[in-house]
């Protein structure tokens, strides 16, 4: 525990935190269809409390029925939430960890689809994501909003929360009022910064009055909206001073971006530098005496300690790090930082699921969101079995982990000289390198659990049978496929061959994207970096159609533009004849041609399923997981491996 400041306690008003690591507010979609907190919530937060988090701040609780932007939002305005509140706070308090509730009204960053009422906002300015013109709230409605916050704050106090945080940052009616971009009012809630901050200060008054002195009160501010005409750091610092001057607030939390216009900067993926938003707490902390929380891709304890040492902030928000490993704090504190299941900032199953209205999970931690169901928990066997896993990609390694966790003796045989399968290849593109932590984490967990991993071993069915394992898990992945239109043309290869170094395209290159994720785009970047003239072609309406889900679309476009990568869409390859690639523009039926030096294909692979069927035919107890079932993404491999391994 080299981190001196990180593990030191801190007073936040009436609350003392044991360390500076905050599990900051973030959406989970764990609430029920009716807006009630669930058992899933309680188990999820409790797990992070048990893992040593200094402070937990829940996801937002809506304070008014006009605020219902997404289905599974906690309806704090319903009295029935109280039981759920107590379940959460009891579970977290069992680990002596304080927990705050975040209150919010999303204002104009919403639609009326769920509420069936007009969206409320300072002015009739439509949000760029929801695209619905809101109703400008009247003074009476402002009073109603304030009353809503006070009521829900009091309910949170009754429900056992230790503090309240007001989300005034990236998706909030308070932000809407603060920002000149969305506040066009001409009454005394609009115009000058003092007027724009009026609602915030009235809310602070009302909420403090509702909760009394015994609970902590925090305000989360946006330091830079990154939009035209929006709030920037100078005004944010000014607002922080106003907040401090109320004398009623105990800490300030920070954020960057607007959840609907510049979301990709709020929950930045691996393509944005760690600690990218630290300038915000830094500037605010220089201006106020209150404790300030910094957020934005704090990945490990050393980086967090450094931010504290350098005086940028007093507390550090580590959200994704604790989603990936609930024991982020406990492991680091006990000197086992290397055992941490480091977050990849891939955004695939946490952030990526929020926009899809699905419960929050983690690409590499099958237990996340499934704590209450016991997923990923060791159940030691009385009859250990010899388990043979064939293939050390993410599916095979997870199967090994899950089986070894329960006390089985596990051997993994991998044909290649290194583990990781497709993930290892994908992570070999420089700006996707953090993806490789998935494999490093799995291998290190295998090592701790005593799994034997043998490299360079190719097993056929006869050899597997000869070894007489009690259980076989086949995780042999998938092999590159050649598209039907390619024939035996030269200078055409799969992305894998580029990444393995087997093929080295040069000159002009067309990359065919039939997968729609990072496969084509990352290889396109790699080739552009090597000096190729690259065009990515997709049959759909966009190249990398799923990049938006992980918040990678904007940065892809920015990088592609800088690297001179062209993108063409709605084109279907029909034939490749003597170096001429013929494509059909399917909306019009027109044929177009390309004559690149190379064609690189990102197309679905073919499962390597032969071993599985041979072993079944031989009567072995065998399961198969990952791409050898059907080629999919890493999370499918991990979750299938976990299931198969746990079922041994």
């Amino acid at each position, binding site marked *: 525990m080299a981190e001196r400041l990180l593990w030191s306690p801190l007073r936040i008003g009436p609350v003392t935190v044991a360390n500076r690591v905050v599990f900051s507010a973030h959406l989970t979609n764990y609430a029920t*269809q*009716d807006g009630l907190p669930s058992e899933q919530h309680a188990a999820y937060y409790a797990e992070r409390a048990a893992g040593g988090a200094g402070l937990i701040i829940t996801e937002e609780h809506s304070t008014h*029925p*006009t605020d*219902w932007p*997404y*289905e599974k939002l906690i309806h704090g305005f319903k009295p029935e939430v109280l039981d759920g509140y107590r379940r959460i706070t009891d579970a977290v308090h069992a680990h002596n960890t304080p927990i705050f509730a975040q209150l919010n009204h999303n204002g104009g960053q919403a639609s*009326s*689809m*769920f*509420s*069936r*009422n*007009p*969206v409320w906002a300072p002015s*009739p300015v*439509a949000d*760029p994501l929801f*695209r*619905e*013109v*809101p*109703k400008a*709230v*009247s003074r*009476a*409605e402002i009073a*109603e909003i304030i009353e809503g916050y006070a009521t829900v704050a009091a309910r949170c106090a009754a429900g056992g929360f230790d503090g309240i945080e007001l989300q005034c940052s990236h998706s909030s009616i308070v932000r809407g009022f603060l920002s000149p971009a969305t506040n066009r009012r001409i009454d005394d809630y609009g115009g000058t910064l003092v007027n724009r901050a009026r609602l915030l200060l009235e809310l602070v008054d009302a909420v403090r009055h509702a909760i009394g002195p015994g609970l902590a009160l925090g305000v989360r501010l946006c330091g830079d909206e990154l939009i035209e005409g929006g709030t920037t750091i100078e005004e944010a610092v000014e607002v922080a001073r106003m907040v401090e001057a109320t004398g009623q607030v105990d800490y300030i939390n920070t954020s960057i971006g607007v959840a609907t216009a510049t979301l990709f900067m709020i929950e930045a993926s691996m393509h944005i530098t760690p600690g990218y938003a630290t300038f915000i707490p830094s500037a605010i902390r220089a201006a106020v005496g209150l404790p300030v929380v910094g957020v934005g891709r704090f990945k490990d304890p050393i980086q967090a300690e450094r931010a504290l040492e350098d005086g940028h902030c007093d507390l550090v928000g580590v959200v994704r790090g604790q989603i990936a490993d609930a024991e982020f704090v406990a492991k680091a504190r006990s000197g086992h930082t290397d055992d941490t299941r480091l977050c990849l900032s891939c955004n695939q199953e946490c952030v990526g*699921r929020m*926009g*899809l*209205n*699905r419960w929050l999970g983690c690409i590499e931690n099958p237990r996340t969101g499934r704590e209450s169901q016991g997923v990923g928990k060791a159940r030691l066997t009385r009859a250990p079995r010899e388990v043979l896993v064939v293939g050390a990609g993410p599916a095979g390694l997870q199967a090994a982990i899950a089986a070894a966790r329960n006390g089985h003796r596990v051997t993994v045989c991998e044909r290649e000289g290194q583990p990781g399968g497709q993930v290892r290849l994908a992570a070999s593109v420089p700006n996707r390198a953090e993806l490789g932590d998935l494999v490093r984490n799995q291998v290190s967990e295998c090592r701790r659990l005593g799994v034997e991993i043998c490299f360079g071993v190719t097993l056929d069915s006869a050899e597997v049978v000869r070894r007489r394992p009690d259980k076989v898990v086949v995780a042999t992945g998938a092999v590159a496929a050649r598209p039907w239109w390619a024939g035996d043309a030269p200078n055409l290869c799969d992305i894998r061959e580029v990444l393995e170094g087997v093929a080295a395209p040069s000159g002009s290159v067309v990359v065919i994207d*039939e*997968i*729609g994720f990072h496969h084509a785009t990352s290889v396109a970047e790699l080739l552009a970096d090597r000096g190729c003239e690259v065009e990515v072609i997709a049959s759909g*309406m*966009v190249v990398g159609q799923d990049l*938006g889900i992980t918040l990678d*679309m*904007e940065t892809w*476009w*920015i990088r592609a*533009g*800088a690297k001179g990568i062209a993108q063409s869409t*709605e084109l279907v390859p029909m034939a490749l004849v003597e170096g001429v690639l013929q494509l059909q*523009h*399917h*909306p*019009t039926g027109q044929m177009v041609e390309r004559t690149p030096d190379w064609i690189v294909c990102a197309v*679905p692979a*073919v*499962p390597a399923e032969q071993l599985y069927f041979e072993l079944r035919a031989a009567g072995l107890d065998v399961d198969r997981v990952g791409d050898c*079932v*059907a*080629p*999919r993404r890493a999370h*499918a491999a991990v*979750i*299938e491996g976990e299931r198969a391994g746990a079922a041994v």
Partner: protein
Amino acid sequence: MKLLSPLAIGPATARNRVFFGAHETNLGAGRALSERHVAYYRRRAAAGVGMIVVEDASVHPSDWPYERAPLATECSQGWAAIAAACHGEGSLVLAGLSHAGGQGSSAYSQGPLWAPSRVPEVNTREVPKWMEPEDIAAVVEGFAAAAAAAVAAGCDGVQVNAGQHSLVRQFLSGLTNQRDDEWGGDRLRFAGDVLVAIRSAIGPDAVLSLRLSCDELAPWAGLTPESAAQVAVALVSEPDARVDTLTVVRGSIFSVAATRPDGHTEAGFNLDLAATIRDALSAAGTPVPVIAQGSIVDIGQAEWAVGDGARADGVEMTRALLADAELVAKVAAGAPERVRPCLLCNQTCSVRDARNPIVTCVVDPRSGHELDDPDESVGRGSGDVLVIGGGVAGMEAARVAARRGHNVRLVERSDRLGGALRTAASGSGRERLAAIAEWLESECRDAGVVIELGRSASPEELSGDVVVAVGSVQGGREYTVTRAAVVRSAAELLAAPEAAPQGDVLIWDPIGGPIGISVAELLASKGRSVHLVTPDNIVGNELSRSGDLAPANARLHQAGVQLHRRSILRAVKKGSVELEDRFSGERRTLRAAVVVDAGHRLPDTTFDAAVGVVRAGDCVAPRTIHEAILEGRRAALALDGIGRLSDGVPMGSSQHG
């Protein structure tokens, strides 16, 4: 009318030939059918529908295509409640049974998709697992067990989905079945096994219906009308299955939206296909009743289809029954003109969307909300009501208030009723929208509303019960406009498309909804050179829910509209515009004689100072027909003290959203 005559379907008889077809609702409670389902179906049964097919239930846990997709093993209670409710009202009830196969989603099951072959799903690109023989056996058994449970719960029978989202169709089609085993050599085998297993499970006294895609619109390998006719004959001729009725649909992996398209596709588009199949069944000596589906929303067409047109024996009028649950009762009462029209807009009834919107209807927001919203026609009011503004919101308020007994006067400053809807309906492919304005006007007149056109309300009139529904005005312009530059709002352009100056037209569409696109299509159809500019990566970004996204893009391309994506309009000058690339920030200049702004509008604040009035529609916040009708209706109810007002705006208190 033939439409209202009974139809024998195997062992059962439907009291008439108007059916409420299987469709997704998101009304469920988890994966079970809910009380909301019961109320939803009961309302249609009570108003005379002949037969109802309940939302498809997945027959096996490997299938979880959308979050609240019913799962057969959790549906017995719901089926029983729905069957009891609808039987009590005289309707037949079938349980829809399905497995979406490779067109499902792994998001909820977190397991691989099951499909005949490893063909990636066209839109999600997900690659399924090819089903092993024991997987096939498990799904066949799932169909049989689900059917037995549905019939045991009191349903009159079941319908097997072999339509556009179905594993059964995937086995039938060369597009998706590339197997070289017995299920590929005989692509009908799986469907046949399913039907035989079901019949064996439900016995002879229950109805077995098949919903079959008879044109996959992919003739290179898919089912065509000709091959589908052979499939239909073969399946219906299977003696051990005894299929009692066939519902003819179209669409497949490449064209899911083609099954239930919006108004860009002609009403009743599938009737000839139904006739082809029906004729083939007759010719083969297996003349089971054929049910037609596909934008059948007009009573006249429906009657023709089952009568003189000889296209089908019955018709699904699903969306028409969302727009007016009492369609059958009104037709039976000899008042077909009183049926509230379906606009074929697909705006709120298409619910395959990750956000889980629940099914409802723009023109009847109570659809899907039967447990939340009061029946607006029930109750009595009296007294004088003034409605200011004859758009959709104002007319709905006037209609409901008058039907509830108020003396209603409606003043409209222009010389025509319909407001913003009239301009929206003059966009290309949007003509059908006008039907609701005409219906509302006719209902208002029938209910005794006094309509005064060409007159603005004066401040002295603002006493007593007043509803303000004065609509919207042009929105703010977030780009510079130099002198002599020509900028029109979409409304101005649609009101007088001929009046736009000659030369290139550039449409600025920051919304991505139907307005900008329909203006572009309209102008292109008049021979104009058109540019469409959007900040999005995709043109018509908001159209995916209605199913018009891909069709709209194809139409624009085919019409030669030049699409400028990822671009922000920065400046409009005389004869040119300046665009900025959203990602690179680079600016470029385009020639354009006129810019049409299809952006958001602002509320008309003329009467904002009025106290004690009720406000509804675009003057609260400019939105769509749906919100206008909902608020207009609530405004009328508010006059009778139902609901609550905030700042004069009637608010709902939906428990379910």
